[in-house]
């Protein structure tokens, strides 16, 4: 609860809404004991007094009634009606939605068809029809507004419930021996309640508007009783001669609804787990750069990373995902970058072309040089011209990395036209040839397919074709086969290997699988805690790992053909990159670690075989 309030008031607008609404509610509650004129006391001699008249701060209306008093009583009424309608509609809708969503099947089907039927009316028609039956009156307007809104709640809550019912923890509860009623009550409902609260808090404002609207039409509160809507309705005929009688209630409605909406948004942000750590932010076109100076170029190469540093800044925390990674890629070479999740291997790869999502990502140091030219902090247009043209990417999950709504042929053609001045037809023809190059059967027909119509393996071939579209020099492949089945993975790896040899491509291959690295890469770099801890030619490194982490990581991966055995696990957890220890990040898990390992920076030593360790397993 305290956390909730803290989150709520973190949003200053919501806090403002809460304060304004609080004041209005308190005044409305206190109205009967405030020293006000009786709201219905008419005095036609004093009609249409302007605001700030003596005895009538806000003036009087067409019957000479005190506007201030009528405003307060009207506010009281409007607030009560709006809240009551929201509560009623919210609870009734939620009950229907939860039951339909939980039980599914026929109950769901029948209920939802009924709901669809009600939603086939523009809501006011239904509200008018209900008022026509019940007769004009505030209570009837309330009922009409509430009933009309039930379908919206029911549908929303049903969707959420159905989503929760298919979550694994509900299966787990069944396996724990719980029955339907108990699961509904203790597993499903606690997860639905926040959604119900969000839905209600964001619609109260709307309910107040709607009941005011019905009163405005003369179908809600009947004279002499007045809510804000009917005050406005009565004032309408004198709009031009005495505008203040309209402005006063209208402005009040605006103020109430606005503060309710601001507060409702705050409640939503505070309760929605996705928004808890701040609103979702959009990644910018390139990663932000905050770099003091570029380090000197050390070696020359096709692609050269020098002490690259990339961080994620979330709130006050700084996650140092990449901590001074240096790496070299020569023409035609395949370099593997291997590590566990959180080791910084993917962030390193994305930093090259400024594709790290930003915010929260920031490149804070180092250089990335392509043919000697530094790309960090390069102007957007230059980076764009190189993306896909000289350095192309292949990503992990081909289903989420291809646009779901464009045909794959068009997506390929677009990659070509982004860099080359060719016509649409020519680009399409090239796209089909690319599909042929990656051995997709029947390429002309497949070019017209959407990504979801292809199998995972075929989709990743499309991903490869897209990377090849502009004959790049370098391909950065970020776990391109992790999401695929083994037999398909073997096909895709073989294709990549063949393409790189026939086209002289340089590949930076990111993976967590030693088997894949050994089959594909010339050299390999092992990452841990955002640093390269070991680097060298693949066969040498795998045969005789020098860093204790590398050795033990290789040992904990079972290998096919090894038979039944106990695995050599590494105790402890990988380091949290927002709290890296000084010295070697592996020291807390390492049995060879000494005090010196924890003391300070350890350099990556060596020429061809490099290792960042004071007490390596072997001397390379």
């Amino acid at each position: 609860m305290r956390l909730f309030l803290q989150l709520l008031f973190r949003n200053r607008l919501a806090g403002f809404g809460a304060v304004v609404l609080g004041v209005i509610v308190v005044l409305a509650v206190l109205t009967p004991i405030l020293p006000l004129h009786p709201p219905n006391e008419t005095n036609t001699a004093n009609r249409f007094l302007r605001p700030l008249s003596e005895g009538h701060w806000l003036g009087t209306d067409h019957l000479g009634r005190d506007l201030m008093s009528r405003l307060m009583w009207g506010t009281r009424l409007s607030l009560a009606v709006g809240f009551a309608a929201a509560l009623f509609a919210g609870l009734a809708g939620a009950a229907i939605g939860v039951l339909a969503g939980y039980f599914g099947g026929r109950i769901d089907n029948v209920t939802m068809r009924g709901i669809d039927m009600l939603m086939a009316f523009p809501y006011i028609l239904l509200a008018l029809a209900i008022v026509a039956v019940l007769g004009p009156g505030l209570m009837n307007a309330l009922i009409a507004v509430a009933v009309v809104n039930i379908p919206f709640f029911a549908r929303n809550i049903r969707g959420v419930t159905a989503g929760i019912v298919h979550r694994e923890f509900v299966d787990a509860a069944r396996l724990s021996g719980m029955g339907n009623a108990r699961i509904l009550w203790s597993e499903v409902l606690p997860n639905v309640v926040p959604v119900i609260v969000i839905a209600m808090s964001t619609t109260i404002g709307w309910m107040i508007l709607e009941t005011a609207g019905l009163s405005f039409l003369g179908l809600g509160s009947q004279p002499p009783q007045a809510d804000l809507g009917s005050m406005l309705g009565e004032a309408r005929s004198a709009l031009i001669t005495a505008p203040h009688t309209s402005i006063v209630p209208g402005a009040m409605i605006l103020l109430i609804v606005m503060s309710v909406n601001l507060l409702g948004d705050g409640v939503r942000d505070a309760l929605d787990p996705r928004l808890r750590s701040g609103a979702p932010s959009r990644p910018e076109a390139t990663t932000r750069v905050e770099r003091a100076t570029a380090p000197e170029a050390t070696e020359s190469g096709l692609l050269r990373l020098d002490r690259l540093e990339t961080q994620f800044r979330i709130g006050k925390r700084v996650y140092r995902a990449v901590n001074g990674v240096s790496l070299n890629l020569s023409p035609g070479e395949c370099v593997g970058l291997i590590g566990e999740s959180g080791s910084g291997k993917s962030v390193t790869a994305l930093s090259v072309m400024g594709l790290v999502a930003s915010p929260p990502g920031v490149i804070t140091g180092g250089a990335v040089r392509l043919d000697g030219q530094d790309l960090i902090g390069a102007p957007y247009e230059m980076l764009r011209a190189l993306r896909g043209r000289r350095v192309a990417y292949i990503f992990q999950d081909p289903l989420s990395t291809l646009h779901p709504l464009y045909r794959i042929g068009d997506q390929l053609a677009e990659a070509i036209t982004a860099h080359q001045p060719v016509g649409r037809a020519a680009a399409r023809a090239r796209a089909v040839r690319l599909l042929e190059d990656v051995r997709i059967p029947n390429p002309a027909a497949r070019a017209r397919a959407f990504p979801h119509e292809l199998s995972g393996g075929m989709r990743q071939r499309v991903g490869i074709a897209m990377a090849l579209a502009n004959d790049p020099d370098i391909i950065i492949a970020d776990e391109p086969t992790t999401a695929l089945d083994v037999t398909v993975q073997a096909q895709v790896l073989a294709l990549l290997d063949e393409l790189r040899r026939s086209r002289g491509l340089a590949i930076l291959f990111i993976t967590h699988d030693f088997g894949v690295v050994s089959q594909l890469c010339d050299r390999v770099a092992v990452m841990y805690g955002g640093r390269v801890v070991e680097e060298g030619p693949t066969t040498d490194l795998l045969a005789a790992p020098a860093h204790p982490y590398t050795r033990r990581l290789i040992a904990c991966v079972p290998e096919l053909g090894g038979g039944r055995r106990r695995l050599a696990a590494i105790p402890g957890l990988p380091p949290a990159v927002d709290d890296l220890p000084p010295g070697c990040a592996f020291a807390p898990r390492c049995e060879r670690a000494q005090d010196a390992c924890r003391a300070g920076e350890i350099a990556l030593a060596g020429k061809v075989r490099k290792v960042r360790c004071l007490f390596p397993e072997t001397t390379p």
Partner: protein
Amino acid sequence: MTLALQTRDLARSFDIGRRLIGPPRARLHAVRPISIQVQQGETLGIVGESGCGKSTLARMLVGLVAPSAGSIEIEGRLLDRADPAAFGRLIQYVFQDPVSSLNPRKTIRQILAAPLRHLRGLRGRELDARIAELFAAVSLRSDFLSRYPHEFSGGQAQRIGIARALAASPRILVLDEPVSALDVSVQAQVLNLLADLKAKLGLTYLFISHDLAVVEAVSDRIAVLYFGALVESGPAHKVFATPRHPYTKLLALSAPVVGRPLGGAQSGELPDPLNPPPGCAFAGRCPHATEICRREMPALRAIEGDQHAACHHPLAP
């Protein structure tokens, strides 16, 4: 040796495009009739690629999915009704995604207490004692009990998942890709924990995975699924070393192994599940396929000793 679990022609099909009235538009056979036997104290590894039906099979075994045909027998007792509560005391399930299998709004203590209360009827001090015992068994600190699931790493959450599965003292655990969501260094910890628990409690495991090396490392026997059917089964040390079914051989060759050149680059994909071929489902990708393979579905038969394969032309060792 006694039988811990036995299925007879267990099968499940799903209706696709169900209409309000009348037959469905299509029927998808997720699991074709499968008969398996698991001995007490044994680990049966089940491997297969996506779409082979291994998860549906697992969910049928614990009662989360009702079979459309066939029967399940646990320790000689026939369990034909899909009722997780009835299954729960005998057989339990460990989920692939440890975090999503824990209710985000419950503390770990509440999560662990549920099976103890509802399946074993424990209350009060007995309950607390049993929870402490379980937590110690999966080597987690007892002050974690009052925390919520989001505070745990994947490896820790999976230990909690295992503790929950063990709570009702089942005889059999179905482990559905229990380490696939974990990093390799953590994966080994969890696999070793599972091995220790098995030895200590005399459990029987059904270990489902797509990772051949992991399955080989933990299993006594291995069953290979392809396209919803059992294509090969046999002792763990033999199945991948001397595969008899061409699909098993393709799998073994495709697995990336350090120091072995790229293999299994053979093309071909799964047949369309809504329009399955009449014969062997692997015939379209098989180098040895003949006329009979495309016409007739091969039955599972003993090839040599305990090694079975469903193939018209089984490979020589």
